[in-house]
């Protein structure tokens, strides 16, 4: 009897969760489907869902018009390097905040977060002038620096919350055994924090990948990532839903696939210390 109730409950849960899940996923699915339609089918009335003549022509057109691989490569470099550099800068800072806290630790942490509240639009002009002076316009180096600085507060904070959960006794034991500070961080702390670091890397990679203001405004022909790629497909002349969908799919596919494969790591660490 109880078993039957449980099963019934489980069926209801499953149906509800799948329904909502599909609803949330639908815009992405619809975009992917539309990218395989012809322009005429993309605006067909009533809309066609699955039964249309699947075609790859939109992808061919998009690829012919813009060199996808170059944009993709720029995205990978900018998001990847900025995240890694950020981690290198943030690990020592987060370590000292977590294990040698002072009265001001929390203030420093919150101050770091508050630097993220500078409105990007308001400082575009100053940054642009600085970039001209330093010759950083339209370079991946320039964007790596900006992306790193933008995400640094989040990286420090995430790492801090993981490190804080590592019991201090372990570190003290290591210290007793004569481990230096460097050894302590490299051989004791880091292995324990790998899940946390992994999810920090993932989250910040995603944030850097999707950033669309600086990446668009500080690049021209050479360093433009996928956010710049998509800017040439919004509202062209005439019918464009299918081409827009193809370009959109190309822009989000890499990160979507990466995200799905690594979602376990991402989710495990995505707590910001909210879970004790």
């Amino acid at each position, binding site marked *: 009897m109880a078993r039957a109730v449980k099963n019934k409950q489980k069926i209801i849960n499953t149906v509800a969760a799948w329904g909502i899940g599909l609803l949330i996923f639908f815009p992405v699915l619809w975009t992917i489907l539309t990218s395989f339609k012809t322009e005429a089918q993309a605006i067909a009335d009533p809309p066609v869902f699955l039964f249309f003549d699947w075609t790859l022509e939109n992808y061919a057109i998009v690829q012919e018009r813009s060199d996808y691989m170059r944009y993709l490569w720029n995205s990978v470099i900018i998001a990847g390097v900025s995240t890694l550099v950020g981690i290198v800068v943030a690990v020592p800072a987060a370590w000292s905040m977590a294990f040698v806290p002072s009265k001001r630790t929390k203030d420093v942490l919150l101050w770091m*977060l508050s630097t993220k509240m500078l409105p990007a639009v308001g400082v575009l002009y100053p940054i642009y002038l600085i970039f001209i002076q330093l010759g950083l316009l339209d370079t991946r180096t320039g964007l790596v620096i900006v992306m790193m600085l933008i995400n640094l507060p989040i990286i420090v904070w995430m790492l801090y919350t993981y490190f804080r959960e590592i019991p201090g006794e372990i570190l003290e034991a290591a210290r007793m055994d004569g481990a230096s500070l460097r050894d302590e961080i490299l051989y004791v702390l880091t292995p324990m924090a790998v899940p946390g670091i992994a999810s920090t890397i993932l989250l910040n990679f995603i944030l850097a990948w999707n950033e669309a203001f600086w990446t668009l405004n500080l690049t021209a022909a050479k360093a433009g990532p996928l956010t710049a790629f998509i800017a040439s497909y919004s509202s062209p002349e005439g019918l464009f839903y299918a081409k827009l969908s193809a370009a959109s799919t190309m822009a989000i596919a890499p990160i979507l696939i990466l995200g799905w494969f690594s979602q376990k790591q991402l989710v495990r660490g995505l707590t910001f210390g909210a879970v004790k």
Partner: protein
Amino acid sequence: MATLHARSAARLMMAPAVVLLLGWMLVPLVMTLYFSFKRYLPLRGGDLGWTGFDNYVRFVTSSSFWPSVQATLIIVGGVLLITVVLGVLLALLLDQPMWGQGIVRILVIAPFFVMPTVSALVWKNMFMDPVNGLFAHLWKFFGLAPLEWLSQASLFSIILIVSWQWLPFATLILLTAIQSLDREQLEAGEIDGAPPLARFRHIILPHLGQAITIVILIQTIFLLSIFAEIFVTTQGSFGTRTLTYLIFQRVLESQNVGLGSAGGVYAIILANIVALFLMRIVGKNLDT
């Protein structure tokens, strides 16, 4: 106990991050302050001299200022409300036993990976377009006149688009928090015969407090500066001109760098008021 040696080492290790962020904050800030006291019009020859507080006065007295603050707060508040409430409900549902939980989680998480420009383009064209959008077809199917989303319900449309992007983030954090809840405690509540609603109010919700605070804090930081969603959809028409967007119009469309910089200073002040407010709460909640 932390020794003196450890303390100075700690300070040294924090230095790179602190120095970098200090530079990233101060250099643009000082330049923005500098420009804000200038009549700086690049299209009219650039620096046209000091003007005192003229830009500041002009920016607040403009008829678009208060509506833009209001729009900013409505969008941030609306998105927070939707993502937190739906996030809690969705997290509760996903915590239940079911078949294919992993796949459902993959489906729910997807919007978070979509870049804001793409999501705004997709929503605007393929869903909210009053002639060819899917919503228009849906409305017509039920015999209703298609809604002109981006003009008639502009703020709501933007809130909807942004909420869609941030719901996965809220859900995931809340779900992890729920999963860490002590099962025995819950089951004890069940055996005591406490009704589900009471269980939710007295056991689950208090436990989620901190996670909700984190969600609100992180999202607010990102939501205060949303730009792409508005640029792509309404370009600030129909009451969707946020403070960020107003500054964009001053700096880039009107090419009035001085005026825009004054606006930037106001935006920093607004952000800090919100931040202070938030950090009071978070600071309390972060004490463990």
